[in-house]
């Protein structure tokens, strides 16, 4: 498995609180992605990064922000968590420039917003 870790793995929080999820990689891949997985929707892209401090929005970016201050870490922040953000969050990495065209996924973070 690719060297991708996510923390925390499980979190329960209350509506209105800020939450930060961390993705850490040891593969030096250029691209990092955050997805949410919900039943019937597959994986939906929240934000992605194509380099340090270079990020872009995905299809479900409202209510989420990201930051990437170094290659190995990609943070996802829920500014003010809502119950609709209860989901499983997956981080992924890729690096087409080095031949890694496919994505490698982290183990996921299960977030529950009460």
């Amino acid at each position, binding site marked *: 498995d690719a060297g991708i870790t996510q923390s925390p793995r499980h979190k329960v929080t209350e509506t209105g609180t800020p939450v930060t999820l961390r993705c850490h990689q040891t593969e030096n891949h250029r*691209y990092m*992605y955050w*997805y949410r997985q919900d039943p*019937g*929707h*597959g*994986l*939906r*892209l929240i934000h*992605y990064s*194509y380099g340090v401090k270079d990020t*872009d929005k*995905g*299809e479900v970016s409202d209510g989420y922000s990201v930051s990437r201050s170094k290659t190995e870490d990609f943070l996802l922040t829920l500014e003010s968590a809502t119950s609709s953000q209860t989901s499983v969050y*997956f981080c*992924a990495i*890729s690096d087409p420039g080095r031949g890694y*065209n*496919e*994505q*490698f*996924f*982290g*183990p*996921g973070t299960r977030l529950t917003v009460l």
Partner: protein
Amino acid sequence: AQSVSQHNHHVILSEAASLELGCNYSYGGTVNLFWYVQYPGQHLQLLLKYFSGDPLVKGIKGFEAEFIKSKFSFNLRKPSVQWSDTAEYFCAAHNFNKFYFGSGTKLNVKP
């Protein structure tokens, strides 16, 4: 924007039956295509990928997929499924730095 459709949401098969899961994508230009598998409680793992060349792609665990450009399809097949193939399967397409996933097909293989 690209979109990926998987029309089979839930498939139930007996062991040794043949499998075919449908996948259609919307973009008509150059696109990379993938099938991922997610076993219960785990993350997504790559089964196979298509970039160019031979449209019949072989992956791990006996899976294969056929790229048919004229039909915008990339269907996944396996001649004989096993109970251990019980999982959710996702088709994905990649272009312009983004990956687009289908909604997934849950496969339940009865022993």
